[in-house]
């Protein structure tokens, strides 16, 4: 990795990219493959999945059997280091003490950011998802359409490697032939659910995930990704050959030392580095974007976290991809005479309309799964899912938009609590543990939240982080669209558990109780929404700030809706598209 220290910094760069996750990784990749000189600033430490991933450790090898702790919220072996709901020395605040108005903000201070830990679910937004206002009068239409983004979805899927299938379902786009990698087989329990919920018209289909079920087509993909760019083709062909196919063991959330799944650190950054056009400075926490007398951005001020000192770097353009909350924070903290309310905030919309995903879950025990003949059910995490299936019933549901369902069954790696619920002791106890192990199911709904006026972030007037930088204060409120949707999820889960002869644990009829706390699904987007009108949005369709065209927001901050589809694939597709446009504008001399 092209990790540099401060003394190696160049006097100036073509583009400074803040953040190294999905948006920053994609931006740096696209820029450097086109010969643009890039400095990437990462607030966390350098991190190398090839040498640091605990690939085969059992939970018995971890302290406390890998229990979830405040420091390692997804368990000891999860890839995230220096991240979580709380980051030491870097607080954020809540505007309300009402637990229903909380927003929990996940941050990941490490190279690769949140791409090191995520479900790798890579669903395309469909045509409806870019025009939600036109369909039901709520929220905002995007200033672009599915057709504008589709070519970039194609490219991202080829670049990162996505398994899945084409099912031809409504608003659930197919990919061009030869783009997706083969979907892994469904597990026994998944097939059982599929059979028994078909009568409700609920489809169970292969999910799309950024995991190499086979190796990538390193012969044909490079030319499709980078036409007329032989150097880029050569670099990405080599990088693709350095990735192995999944060997169907160890949890993807730990990271992947054989590069079979997508992490920015194993997929975007190595080829970007190979171009010779990328410098990465870690432990560099961006505080603000600086502006020249011409009103354009000309660099970034950051805190060197090792020395605690403030530093400045120069660039012709700046791409913020720091996570939507952090990007909003940087803009709000970039105050100057010309931009007294923060950079690109003439509309007053920076920090507004933050969204997460609607989440609710329900588990149950399933006697039919007991004593299933033993076989390896590990696979690669999620193999199948249920896409939203009630588009035709939109007017009858009592809430707008919809959700998809992820679920898990089977005998997976034992953890804390395995065997803990059975009664007695001795041989009969152990027999019951064997009988019940894996005989359960868990459903999770992931649904669309509509942007609202009550969900936003702003600078806290008094609280600062350990570097003296003002922190974010969150305001949050779900609308009835979301809480009713959560109640619908619970009822659907209970219906499905019943249909497979199972017993549900405590279905929650009150959606406001069933719904997860804001931010808990870690799909935070918005805060600097894009639009067609400079007065009503922060960026144009190219993620370009209306008021400062050489600043791009290439993470989820420019999202003006948050479809049920997990945002990462769309962040990457839009980052690629916006970066192509930036390169073009720089070539034309427009910036």
């Amino acid at each position: 990795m092209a990790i540099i220290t401060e003394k190696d910094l160049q006097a100036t760069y073509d583009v400074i990219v803040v953040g190294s996750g999905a948006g920053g990784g994609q931006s740096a990749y696209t820029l450097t493959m086109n010969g643009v000189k890039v400095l990437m600033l990462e607030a966390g430490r350098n991190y190398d999945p090839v040498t640091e991933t605990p690939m085969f450790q059992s939970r018995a090898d971890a302290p406390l059997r890998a229990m979830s702790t405040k420091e390692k919220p997804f368990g000891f072996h999860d890839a995230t280091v220096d991240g979580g709901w709380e980051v030491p020395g870097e607080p954020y605040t809540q505007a309300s003490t009402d637990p229903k108005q909380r927003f929990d903000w996940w941050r990941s201070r490490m190279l690769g950011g949140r791409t090191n830990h995520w479900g790798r679910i890579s669903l395309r937004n469909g045509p409806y998802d870019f025009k939600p206002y036109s369909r039901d009068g709520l929220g905002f239409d995007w200033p672009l359409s599915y057709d504008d983004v589709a070519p970039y979805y194609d490219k991202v899927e080829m670049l990162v490697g996505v398994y899945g299938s084409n099912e031809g379902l409504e608003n659930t786009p197919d990919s061009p032939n030869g783009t997706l990698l083969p979907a892994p087989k469904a597990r026994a329990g998944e097939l059982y659910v599929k059979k028994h919920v078909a009568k409700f018209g609920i489809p169970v289909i292969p999910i799309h995930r950024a995991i190499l079920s086979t190796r990538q087509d390193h012969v044909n993909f490079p030319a499709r990704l980078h036409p007329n760019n032989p150097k880029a083709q050569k670099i990405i062909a080599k990088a693709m050959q350095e990735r192995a196919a999944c060997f169907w063991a160890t949890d993807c959330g730990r990271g992947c030392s054989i590069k079979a799944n997508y992490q920015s650190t194993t997929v975007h950054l190595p080829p970007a580095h190979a171009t010779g056009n990328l410098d990465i400075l870690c432990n560099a926490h961006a505080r603000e974007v600086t502006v020249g007398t011409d009103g354009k951005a000309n660099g970034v001020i950051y805190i060197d976290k090792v020395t605690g000192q403030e530093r400045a770097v120069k660039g012709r353009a700046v791409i913020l991809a720091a996570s939507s909350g952090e990007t909003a924070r940087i803009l709000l903290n970039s105050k100057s005479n010309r931009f007294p309310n923060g950079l690109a905030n003439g509309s007053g919309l920076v920090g507004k309309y933050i969204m997460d995903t609607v989440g609710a879950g329900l588990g149950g025990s399933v006697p039919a799964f007991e004593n299933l003949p033993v076989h390896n059910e590990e696979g690669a995490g999620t193999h199948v899912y249920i896409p939203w299936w009630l588009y035709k019933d939109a007017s009858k549901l009592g809430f707008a938009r919809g959700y998809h369902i992820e679920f898990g069954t089977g005998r997976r790696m034992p953890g804390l609590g395995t065997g803990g619920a059975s009664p007695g002791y001795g041989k009969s106890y152990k027999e019951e543990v064997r009988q019940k192990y894996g005989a359960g199911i868990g459903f999770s709904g992931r649904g669309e939240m509509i942007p609202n006026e009550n969900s936003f972030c702003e600078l806290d007037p008094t609280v600062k982080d350990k570097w003296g930088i003002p922190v974010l204060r969150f305001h949050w409120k779900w609308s009835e669209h979301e809480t009713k949707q959560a109640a619908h999820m619970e009822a659907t889960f209970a219906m499905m558990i019943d249909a497979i002869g199972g017993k549900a644990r405590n279905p929650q009829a009150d959606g406001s109780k069933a719904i997860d706390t804001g931010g808990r699904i870690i799909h935070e987007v918005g805060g600097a929404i894009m639009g067609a009108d400079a007065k009503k949005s922060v960026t144009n369709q190219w993620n370009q700030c209306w008021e400062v065209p050489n600043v791009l927001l290439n993470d989820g901050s420019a999202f003006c809706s948050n479809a049920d589809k997990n945002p990462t694939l769309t962040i990457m597709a839009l980052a690629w598209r916006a970066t192509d446009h930036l390169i073009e504008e720089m070539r034309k001399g427009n910036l």
Partner: protein
Amino acid sequence: MENIPADNSGQIDRRMALKWIGAAAAAAAVFPHASAQDKLPRPAATPTGQRIGTDPVLNKNYVPGDLWPLTLTPKQRKAAASLTDLIMPPDNPGDKLPSQLGVQEFIDEWISSPYDETSKDRPVITEGLDWLDAEAQRRFQKDFADLAEAQKCAIADDICGKTPVKKEFKSAQNFFGRFRYLAASGYYTTPQGWKDVGYVGNVPTVNFDGPTPEALKHLGLA
């Protein structure tokens, strides 16, 4: 927001210290039914405050005691080992006893660690193990680990909850439930425990074959 001090190794932060004081105060109420003479001196609670931290080395194998000092006295540890073996006796020839796999050391690691979720088990487990030996002495004049199998079962049957538990054993039942939860968690997370419970994953394979014909047949899908 509550924040974890950036550098807290070797010292207890104020919030954790308050929690420990609270836990120690709560401990007195854990075994209200135990008579005063049954109570043996408890080990001094001397947590160092050492936590896992936000950036531990992940691809390294840890053993109990690596991160914080353990709590159980040799006598308590012996009782704990004996009880894990009673709860989960080996079924297959060649299998080790849970105590040979260090399950009691995991339980010790758990109760010795400075987390909300774990520290509340500390008085439950230490006092419970003391009660177990005291009860064994009362009934059979030996420590629990030295009892015959049938004698161990006589005590366990009274507190395991499979049949209605008498009022005087309610605290012991609570102890047994937590102990079993921890013992099972400790055991089934080991490679022997995996095999025992029917987990055969975590093995690299070229292809993911999906369900076997037998599994499909079991579910009426073949």
